[in-house]
């Protein structure tokens, strides 16, 4: 087979800072982690709304992280 020029890895290509699965993982992890924190705070303090606050905050943080990765200037 003829020699090809070396192919840079998926993460070495300068324009790609990540892929769609990073965005999905960030959002899912945000909802899970901060929803869990919210639920734990709920059962500790006896309230019932903190889990929703946690889920929304986690989703917001996940979106912020995705924005920073893909859109914000380096």
């Amino acid at each position: 087979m003829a020699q090809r020029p070396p192919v840079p890895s998926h993460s070495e290509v300068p324009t790609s800072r990540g892929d769609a699965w990073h965005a999905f993982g960030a959002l899912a992890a945000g909802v899970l982690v901060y929803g869990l924190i919210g639920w734990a705070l709920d059962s500790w303090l006896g309230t019932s709304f903190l889990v929703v606050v946690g889920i929304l905050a986690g989703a917001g943080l996940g979106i912020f992280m995705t924005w920073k990765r893909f859109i914000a200037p380096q």
Partner: protein
Amino acid sequence: MSIATSSIRAEGFTPPGPGDFNLPPIGPDKTFDWLGQTHYIGVTKPMLQLVLAGVLVFGFFYIAARRQAMVPGRLQFMGEQAYGFVRNSMGRDIIGSHDFMRFVPYLFALFFFILVNNVFATIPFIQFPTFSRSGMVYSLALLSWLIYNAVGIKAHGFLGYLKHQSVPAGVTGPILGLLIPLEFISNIIVRPVTLALRLFANMLAGHLLLILFALGGEYLLLESAALIKPVGILAWLLFIAISFLELLVQFLQAYVFVLLNAMYISGAVSEEH
């Protein structure tokens, strides 16, 4: 008889459920209790399918690669094309030509193993997708998790690797404190779980749909009023159509599983941020 009174009685038909995927063991039906759960002793059909898939994949590629002629015959050409597909599109293009060869045996074996096991759902007399049993899928995901973490730790050192996986790209300042657990969970926990869940849910749901259309169509044809019987034929036509869709899904799920594996390995080894 009006259509309303000739409608199907719900209690006559028991719809299929995930319990139908719990195949009984071949041979003596002995059970034992451990940790409060009842376990089977015995070999079940999915276990045999795993072994059969391994034998088939190894056998095919061994026979294809045996002669290693410079001008390949048909079988060797097919084997080379299959190997090249995984090695190029998933190994070299994702991991990079610098150190992708280490991982090609794993990706190659994984792709064809998953593909053959998925296609077992369509082959007559077997007709069971092995990866609709979640334990088998989570084992594969565990292996993949161990590999990409081990590779990353070897490349960056343990603390360096944790930093690599936990600090998100392009973020500085105090908000890092909120984002580090998020990024860590996203890279270390969510990835293997979604990898396994994707394959398992696709195989389970697809096969459940096929069972529903087949059994439902049979029930409609045999045990419903005459006006409703054509719906049974329609159910069977849909059964055939969805079988073709399932073939596509089987290939695609195997491809996506190995592609994501390669991407996780590439992300763990890479030198970015």
